[in-house]
């Protein structure tokens, strides 16, 4: 296969994924006492974000949504500043002005984190418009949920990107599989009449492909191939990554319903139990990758454990950093509306 992951790349992806997971766990822990607002965890979708980011260049631009934590952390942004932002602290990326919905780290290539469903699609198209005429063969990436395709602006922007052959990668993270839907008093999962979501970009002559979003090899290969095509001037590409929804997304104010991830469950099935055992066993992308890397001989249990401990330590530092950061000065609210 042309875009086969090397062991090194797989390990990189695992590190990104573990950072995402441990970060979200830390967010949940901190949120109990310190958080205000409504937040959306990335748990269960790590394989998508990490594999996409692995395939990107550092100069590529990213535009994302309300469910952004994983993208920011996976791209290597400082978890301390991310957590500080989520807590509304002065040392957060946005100085506390954005919060969970709008984490933005420009130096890592993030241009916008819009909580308007569908927003990222139009903005990424615009970034692609600028990049097309700039030197550097750089591309823009939009991360968005399946629900974003319900917004008309998504359709308009896909059409524009296709017409103008813009260098944009559209990553649709479809997490509606297994979603409980409106019955639970939650946002309904995606409601679109298309039998296949990819039929929509395809109708606009955009090359589109649907992959298992919990399978790092599948995501990476699809993305790497699409990126190569985009850089070769073939215009926008669309990838749908399908994940089975993490059960913790169900409650509206997410708690860690599957508990703190026990990595040993990857090599010792007996550690899996409880209400959500099925999801943990079959659909947790982190455990799935750990299992695969160990089976494959790419990593030993000890190595995995060491990587994890290291990341958990970093998250402890991030937590302390964020909690030590002051809240912004109230009067500063009036500043910075204009450049």
């Amino acid at each position, binding site marked *: 296969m042309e875009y086969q992951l090397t062991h090194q790349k797989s390990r990189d992806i695992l590190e990104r994924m573990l950072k995402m997971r441990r970060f979200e766990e830390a967010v949940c822990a901190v949120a109990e006492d310190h958080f205000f607002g409504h937040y959306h965890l990335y748990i269960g979708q790590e394989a998508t974000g990490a594999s996409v980011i692995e395939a990107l260049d550092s100069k590529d631009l990213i535009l994302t949504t309300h469910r952004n934590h994983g993208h920011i952390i996976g791209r290597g942004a400082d978890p301390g500043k991310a957590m500080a932002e989520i807590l509304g602290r002065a040392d957060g990326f946005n100085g506390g*002005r954005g919060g*969970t*919905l709008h984490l933005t780290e420009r130096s890592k290539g993030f241009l916008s984190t819009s*909580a308007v469903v569908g927003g990222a699609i139009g903005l990424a198209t615009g970034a692609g418009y600028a990049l097309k005429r700039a030197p550097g063969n750089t591309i823009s990436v939009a991360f968005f949920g399946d629900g974003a395709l319900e917004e008309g602006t998504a359709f308009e922007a896909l059409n524009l990107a296709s017409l103008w052959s813009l260098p944009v990668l559209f990553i649709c993270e479809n997490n509606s599989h297994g979603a409980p839907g409106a019955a639970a008093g939650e946002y309904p999962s995606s409601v679109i009449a298309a039998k296949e979501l990819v039929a929509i970009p395809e109708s606009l002559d955009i090359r589109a492909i649907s992959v298992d979003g919990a399978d790092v090899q599948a995501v990476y290969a699809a993305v790497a191939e699409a990126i190569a095509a985009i850089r070769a001037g073939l215009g926008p590409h669309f990838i749908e990554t399908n994940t089975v929804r993490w059960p913790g997304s169900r409650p509206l104010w997410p708690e860690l319903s599957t508990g703190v991830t026990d990595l040993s469950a990857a090599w010792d099935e007996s550690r899996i139990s409880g209400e959500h055992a099925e999801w943990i066993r079959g659909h947790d992308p982190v455990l799935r990758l750990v299992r695969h890397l160990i089976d494959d001989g790419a990593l030993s249990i000890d190595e995995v454990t060491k990587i994890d401990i290291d990341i958990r330590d970093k998250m402890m530092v991030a937590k302390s950093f964020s909690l030590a950061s002051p809240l912004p000065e109230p009067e500063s*609210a009036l500043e910075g509306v204009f450049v």
Partner: protein
Amino acid sequence: MSNMTYAEALIDGLHGCMSEDERVSLIGSFVLGLGPQRHLVDRLRNNFADRINDPPTSEAAAAAAGIGAAMAGDRPFVDIGTASFIFEAWSQITNEAANAYYMSGGQIKTPVTFHMLHGLRGGGAAQHSHSPQAMLFNCPGLEIVLPASPSDVKGLIRSAVLSDNPTVVIDHAKLLGLEEDVPKHDYEIPFGKANVRRRGGDVTIVATSLTVQTSLEAAEILSQQGIEVEVIDPRTIVPLDKEAIFSSVEKTGRLVVVDEANMSCSIASEIGMIVAEEAFSFLKAPIVRVARPDVPVPFSPPLEEYIATDADKIIAAVKKVAV
């Protein structure tokens, strides 16, 4: 009478409308948002399942569907959710709903109701905290309703659904838990009739939505300090009960206008300006506005609090003009 929350009263009002008229249906059912009261909507879901239709995340189509259905004889209640997202349906509301009756020379009625939750909700940040009422006020053809109490919301929501005009009902997320005695039977509250929430001879406050409550708090404190404030809640912005405002200002000579939304071109600006134009001779002091400074809404609590319209700011404004 029975004691109920604002959220319960709202659902009660809607329940009455849906029981009576089969042509009333919901397009979008997150009428109470995603907060703790959301399960109260189940009362409607259980009784009128076939008349509750949750659209995709397509505010424009949902609004257009409501408008088109109303033109065809239905009486739809379209829930937009967080008010910031009405901007996705702006063309439908300003260019279709608002114009249809006038533009058709009176042939086409559009008895649609749009509903949304506005304002600072705590941590909503810049894209979930809008108060679009002032922008809507700048668009002729829409009735605009801003309830501020449980008994008002029950009657106003009924009047909105029964109205043959397109009507926008804007609730404040922070009002949903407010409790009060509310009449058990169904009733309407006529549009364009202000509610004088407190009598006082020193200063007139005109406030809407959540800021009516804030103003009442401020009035209580001011009263202890010897300043008697009259608090007027117009309840509907279109139509607006100017007379109630003028007759209060005639008495007090002093006006503070309180608003949740951004200062510039706000409802506070409009109401103040109307007085400066039509009741100038009554004025003994500058008109003062208390509204949000012109900044996007920041996420962090101390920042959000700093720009919010609170009792302290109202008290300071009143003291500025009181003798």
